[in-house]
């Protein structure tokens, strides 16, 4: 009586190839296509990195004369490029490398700290800034900048006057302002800063730092990177904080902990995974940034991307080999950081953040 209703032999070729024999196993056809495509993409990802790696060991002649693929087979690898970078002009490389590390770490720390504080504030505290006072502030700012740009007033003088005017006006008029903004508007305002292309703001920032004599310094670039990455941190951490249940914090407050202590003692440790994902993303962005560094640094604060670009502007043709060495050397710390932080990043985190 045990007639087999639906055994494999009776199905058409297409079904035999692409229909799973049972629920948990993949059909042979699908199995092969899936793995083939994934392996193809792995090749697409790894081959350029491989090519950069072997080019870093090639002599200029090898690079110029034709595609060689396998070290020791097609060409004899040579350490001249690595020597050039790590021995000959070791100071430049070290300077650029340390600059890059200092700037990336400091700007990430700053933006993650300030960003998570703002995100926590927006997640837990009800802000009601008055629309009226904001309009006055904007008007005062525009007036100050017109004074500086158009009439050459000293910038700090214009700033002080504007602040004073703003303070008194708000004191006098704030009672009459009714409409207030909510957290959502502030959040949208911060996150929308991300739409601002760096090129729009970099010229005034350049002039601002130049006026203060801070051009070509670490702190200039650190501050600029921190602000550019702030919206991402607020965006990611806001979602993370809203997903943490409030009752933990409420119980801490009942125990008498101030809100700040709750934030540092309870909330931050709990959101280690979110912090790890944000830190990784933000540090990659500041480690690889090129345009702002080009504007704000001349030599003392030169970062690695500038060094790489410098190697292409030579009059002896693009120094492909030393450039490849720099690229490889630049990947190492990021891979290291990714591995260290990988433990914290559960797959849900990135998604949770995006769904916001």
């Amino acid at each position, binding site marked *: 009586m045990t007639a087999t209703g639906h055994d494999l032999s009776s199905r058409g070729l297409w079904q035999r190839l692409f229909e799973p024999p049972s629920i948990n196993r993949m059909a042979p056809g699908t199995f092969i296509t899936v793995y083939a495509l994934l392996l193809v993409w792995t090749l697409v990802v790894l081959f350029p990195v491989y090519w950069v790696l072997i080019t870093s060991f090639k002599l*200029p*002649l090898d690079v*110029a*004369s034709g595609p060689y693929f396998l070290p020791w087979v097609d060409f004899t690898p040579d350490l001249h490029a690595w020597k050039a970078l790590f021995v000959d002009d070791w100071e*430049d490389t070290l300077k650029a490398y340390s600059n890059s590390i200092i700037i990336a770490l400091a700007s990430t720390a700053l933006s993650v700290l300030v960003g998570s504080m703002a995100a926590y504030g927006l997640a837990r505290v009800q802000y009601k800034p008055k629309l009226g006072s904001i309009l006055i502030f904007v008007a005062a700012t525009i007036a100050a900048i017109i004074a500086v740009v158009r009439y050459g007033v000293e910038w700090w003088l214009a700033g002080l006057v504007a602040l004073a005017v703003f303070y008194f006006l708000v004191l006098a008029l704030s009672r009459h302002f009714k409409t207030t903004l909510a957290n959502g508007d502030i959040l949208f305002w911060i996150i929308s800063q991300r739409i601002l292309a760096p090129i729009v703001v970099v010229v005034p920032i350049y002039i601002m730092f*130049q*006026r203060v*004599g801070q*051009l*070509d310094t670490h702190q200039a670039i650190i501050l600029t990177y921190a602000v550019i990455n702030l919206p991402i941190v607020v965006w990611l951490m806001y979602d993370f904080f809203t997903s943490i249940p409030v009752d933990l914090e409420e119980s801490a407050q009942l125990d008498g902990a101030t809100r700040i202590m709750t934030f540092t003692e309870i909330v931050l440790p709990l959101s280690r995974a979110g912090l790890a994902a944000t830190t990784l993303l933000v540090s990659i962005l500041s480690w690889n940034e090129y345009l702002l560094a*080009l504007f704000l640094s*001349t*030599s003392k604060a*030169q970062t690695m991307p*500038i060094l790489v*670009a*410098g*190697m292409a*502007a*030579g*009059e*002896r*043709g*693009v*120094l492909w080999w030393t450039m490849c060495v720099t690229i490889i050397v630049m990947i190492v710390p990021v891979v290291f950081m990714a591995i260290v932080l990988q433990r914290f990043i559960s797959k849900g985190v990135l998604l949770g953040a995006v769904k916001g």
Partner: protein
Amino acid sequence: MTHNPLKALLAGAAGVATAVAMAAPTVAQDYSGITVNILTRPGPVIAGRMAERGEEFTEMTGAEIRVDEVPFAELFQKVLTDWATGTNSIDVGVFASGWATELAAADLLEDLTPYVEADDKIDIDDIAPYFREFNQKIAGQVKLITLDGDFQMAYYRTDIFDEYGLEPPRTWDEYLANAAAVHGKDFNGDGEPDFGSCMFKKRNAQSYFAVMSFAAAYVQSKGTGEGIFFDTETMKPKVNNEAWIKAFEIYKATGEYGPPDEINHDVGDTRALLQAGRCAQMIDWGDVGPLSIDPEGELIRNKMGAVIMPGTTEVLDEESGELVACDAERCPHAIDGINYAPFAAFGGWSGAINKNADPKVKEAAYAFLSYMNQAAQSNVDVTMGWTGYNPYRNSQLENLEPWIEAGFTEEAASNYLGAIKASLNNPNMASDLKIPGAAQYTGVILDRELARFLAGDITAEQAVANIEEGWEEITDDFGRDEQAEIYRLSLGITNQ
């Protein structure tokens, strides 16, 4: 020559200079404790040799020489903002002499005339007249110390030209004919077809200097004073005419005999191809000679012939904007019927000192620049290809000793130096554009239209028309009269 306003200025300045001379110290002074910050372009070229000379200078005088590097495209803008905004983190800028005009106009450059007069080691007269009078001086005052004599020449592979019985190109038509004759043949024995001509054409990579070399001979025939960019009276661009159109078209025509991706090659790429032995002809600065005796250049060692930048038999008639045949009256400087106008592209790397730097630092800076410029050092430096320094002193051109020591054969050295001498002493040498906004005129407008023309978006006629419109806008923006005044000054010195 009508009364030359510049000469009057020179006489006046000389009077002042003598008064100040006593104050300027002699060169070998003790400057321990002083740091001179020099900013220049990256890479071994220019900066590398300077750093080595800097160490020697520190041993001699105790002054610490810091050579900072920044990508070429950012150099001018970094120096200008650093000095104009009073940040003064840079003491000496080593850049193209053409850029100095804008800094001088903004009164940011130290007047080096008193330093030069008090300096007994510099032997200023040994410097070729073009660079001494014209390159180093702005409005009669010495504002720059030449470190490198830049002008463009044509180069050809002597072995290939002998093999195929070709003559060195004297005109652009001959250049194209030679290129056609050998294109596709294999020069370096690697089995792959090589190129009749290598030409750098990449956008934003100095390609506009190359096309100016093509246009110079067509536009200028009555000596350096005539200029190839603007009408000296009305400051109207001398671009929208047959001469520049022909120059654009020939420049593009070389592409048929060059590498396929030539449009993306900068001067570095073409030199790499040359060293790989793949180019029969090319135009470039003076670096090609020393490059051929570099360790990497053994494929072309002593096979590189140099010749003055090819000329033309037809010259621009300004009224009609047409090209007319050369005749004695129209081309006074023509040599057997061919009007040459070697182009001092880029003007050559020179050092200028920040006027607002500390006086002690200025002294040490001048001493170092003079040390680099003196024949004892510069004659050796110009023979080394990798340094990027090209000859600019007569002493470097007369005796062949240092060149032969450096690796040239006697015959190759005399050919190379002969071509330089012919170019340097040619009275019709075309000067680079040296007025405020030069970077916008050439680096932005001309370079962009050239790139669009090479990419086939527009025709040569449209390109030159766009350039004229763009330049007029810049001139009006900067003020037509000041620009005209400075342009005349920059052409004032004629080559006696």
